[in-house]
């Protein structure tokens, strides 16, 4: 990291978003440091996705600032930079893993092309090299390499999700947004995926923001946790701390709702 650990990678301050009279999220501030994984938990409708969309450059917040530490200029407000710069950031330095892989993948083209797309978008024009890189990444996400030329629609849910992750990581992003990355997968596949995610995050020194309603996911891959309710962050802290000793009544409710097997 060129700027070292002195500057946060992402800095969010006073962020609120309203849909007319309805509050999406309200007064959210936090810093994300390089190599850190933050989890956002809360029930349905608590504003998690609104928050994620606002900080990932997909929806301008009503008020507040989202600053990202760019490679060249240091901290810069992503909604004040030109759209061209922001879109460039979104397809190089950032990744976005959708809950439903169909939203994040191009279903009509092969797995290899899905991974190659981001490379071609930033100017790669050598077929052989694109293919080699795609191959490498499929290996890293434990994909059966024989299936590189198959369409994503022929893959299982877990494979689609791993493909989506590979597709996002191929340009070497520094920040990855994940919206319920394990939603809709059965538990054994979830466990493998989480294991993979944890490995990748550690190996690549990625920072990530993971939105989930699954506290087990939060426990496994995040270091810090924000608990949201009705658009507001009601509690933040180290993940183990929040989960083992919740302070806010809602956090207590959330933690006590986990089914013990």
């Amino acid at each position, binding site marked *: 990291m060129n700027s070292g650990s002195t500057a946060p990678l992402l800095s969010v301050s006073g962020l609120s978003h309203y849909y007319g009279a309805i509050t999406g999220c309200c007064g959210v501030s936090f810093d994300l440091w390089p190599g850190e994984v933050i989890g956002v938990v809360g029930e349905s409708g608590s504003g998690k996705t609104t928050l994620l969309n606002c900080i990932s450059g997909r929806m301008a917040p009503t008020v507040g600032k989202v600053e990202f530490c760019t490679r060249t200029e240091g901290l810069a407000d992503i909604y004040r930079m030109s*759209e*061209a710069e922001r*879109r460039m950031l979104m397809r190089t330095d950032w990744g976005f893993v959708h809950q439903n892989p169909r939203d994040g993948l*191009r279903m009509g*083209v*092969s797995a*290899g*092309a899905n991974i*190659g*797309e981001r490379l*071609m*978008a*930033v*100017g790669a*024009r*050598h*077929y*052989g090299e*694109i293919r080699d890189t795609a191959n490498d990444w499929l290996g890293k996400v434990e994909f059966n390499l024989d299936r590189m*030329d198959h369409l994503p629609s022929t893959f299982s849910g877990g494979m689609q999700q791993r493909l989506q992750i590979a597709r996002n990581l191929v340009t070497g992003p520094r920040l990855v947004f994940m919206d319920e990355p394990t939603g809709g997968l059965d538990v054994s596949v979830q466990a493998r995926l989480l294991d993979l995610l944890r490995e990748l995050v550690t190996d690549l020194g990625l920072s990530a923001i993971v939105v989930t309603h699954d506290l087990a996911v939060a426990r496994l891959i995040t270091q810090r946790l924000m608990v949201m309710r009705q658009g507001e962050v009601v509690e933040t802290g180290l993940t183990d701390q929040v989960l083992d000793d919740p302070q806010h009544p809602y956090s207590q409710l959330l933690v006590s709702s986990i089914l013990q097997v």
Partner: protein
Amino acid sequence: MDTISQSPDNFHAASGSYNFAYLDEQTKRMIRRALLKAITIPGYQVPFGGREMPLSYGWGTGGIQVTASVIGPEDILKVIDQGADDTTNAVSIRSFFAKTTGVETTTETAEATLIQTRHRIPETPLREDQVIVYQVPIPEPLRWLEPRETETRKMHGLAEYGGMHVRLYEDITRYGKIATSYDYPVIVNGRYLMRPSPIPKFDNPKMDQNPALQLFGAGREKRIYAVPPYTSVKSLDFEDHPFEIQTWDQDCAICGSTDSFLDEVITDDAGGRMFVCSDTDYCGQRMAAHDASDETETNQ
């Protein structure tokens, strides 16, 4: 109106109550403005208020409106459909303009000043004093990639064209080579991505640095774009899979041409087939020249 008085005498007799070249002068003016904008921004799609034409969408309503707006009484018109001058679309559009303008028509590329075409660029090289009008079914090259018009416009604005290579990548992965053979995407003047209309990729190199003005009209989608004379037109490709045009094992069965685009013609139901020039005028010219030289030989 003044413009009508400019038209040749035989026009009044033939046209009945229609204005010169069918469209009213205000419409032509609007289309010419769109054309001027299109020429100044090569490859950029300019929206225009497309009119209902007396033929159905998909038959050349865009091209016909562009032709109607640029045609003058002194022009000599040629209309091409799939390379031929004698197919339905070519015949009816040619007679439409003969009727509504009274201009002279021709089938010879070298003689024409204005050429409306569907699916081909003539084999005979074009000149500076010629204008070629293409009929375009779908003008947006990014449409297969992105269905939203707002988004494709943004992608053009920011020159985000990387995704187009995904299609070529898929071609190579599936077929071992770039299998896209017509409507092959190009970058115009190093800036805008453009669909060259469904011409075979064989014709793509002819667009590059062409001395003639090239105009494109899409009637259903109501878009006009242009490639001015001597403008670079580059076909997309990969460094290790460069752009290539089609080749044939045979020569033209009629004129023996080795360098023109060939159509496969099925001659019977027993597998009989022949390959002939798609450009009927070019083939005819070669035959005429051949016959002429034969005659001089026998005379000697």
